[in-house]
């Protein structure tokens, strides 16, 4: 049944994702992503990805929630605060700031780093996600990005294997 289904049948259109300019700061990206979150029944929902646009408005990269946390320097804090009880010290706060003024283009994943084609079989996309350790793949046709594919979008395919 799903044998003839292709990536284009699973992907979510690009227009559903929030965007940010490549020249924006990481902090501005954090703000943009947070603005797209919604609270439903006390639980936060939202996209885990920003699409980065170049000056011409074309998709140039992807910025995941995880990459943003890395970018604001949180991981670098490990050595300093890991064993402190007062992890949220003012010292830690100041450490977060330099990272947040970096530009989005310096921390994004270039859009053509790992991609799939709309006509690729879903298995191909799943294996690529596993091989590259990513949860989002840009779907590229020609030079343009037409959509994004996430692990959760592949659920119907995974179910067909069970």
């Amino acid at each position, binding site marked *: 049944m799903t044998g003839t289904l292709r990536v284009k049948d699973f992907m979510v259109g690009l227009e559903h994702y929030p965007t940010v300019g490549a020249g924006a700061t990481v902090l501005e990206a954090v703000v943009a992503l947070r603005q797209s979150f919604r609270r439903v029944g006390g639980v936060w929902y939202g996209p885990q990805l920003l699409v980065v646009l170049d000056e011409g408005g074309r998709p140039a990269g992807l910025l995941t929630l995880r990459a943003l946390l890395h970018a604001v320097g949180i991981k670098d804090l490990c050595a300093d605060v890991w064993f402190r009880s007062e992890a949220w010290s003012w010292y830690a*706060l100041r450490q977060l700031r330099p990272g947040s003024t970096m530009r989005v283009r310096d921390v994004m994943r270039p859009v053509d780093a790992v991609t799939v084609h709309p006509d690729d079989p879903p298995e191909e996309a*799943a294996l690529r996600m*596993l091989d590259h350790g990513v949860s989002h793949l840009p779907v590229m046709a020609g030079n343009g990005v037409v959509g994004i594919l996430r692990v959760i979008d592949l659920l119907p395919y995974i179910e067909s294997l069970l």
Partner: protein
Amino acid sequence: MPARRKVREIMVPVTSYPRVHEDASLHEVVDLLRESTPPEKGAWHGYQSVLVYDRRGALVGLLTLRGLLKLVRLRHLDRDLRVLGVSWGAYYWQRYRETRGLRVRDIMRPVRAVTVRADDTVLRAALIMLWRHFNSLPVVDDGHVVGMVRLLDVFWVLGELLEADEE
């Protein structure tokens, strides 16, 4: 004040988190994950894992989206071997057949593997998630799992902190 936020304040209570029985079929997990994501918003993510309970009602594990994705590799491996005509392909075929009857308990992550405490700071939860590459962590209080904290929850609070710092 964001700088003092504890995991307890931002976690999803264990009672509101999607759950399955360890003997449940993987189809049930797929259905749960599908239901827990609001369908009207194409790019939204809600839950990327479900909690797994045993017969006595004890929380024993966590089944993640990524865990499900790994099943694709198993199937792929099996097909390749049969195409190649490898003599031990039959062994893998058998394994694959067994896979079709896989239960939740076979591919879950044990709940005790990595946890945070309810009184830990949000930053500590963030560090563990980044280090271990997890998207959700069980929250333990007094020996019991009381909630789940997701990368989304952590990001919300840290963003609050960064934005406040900017003003």
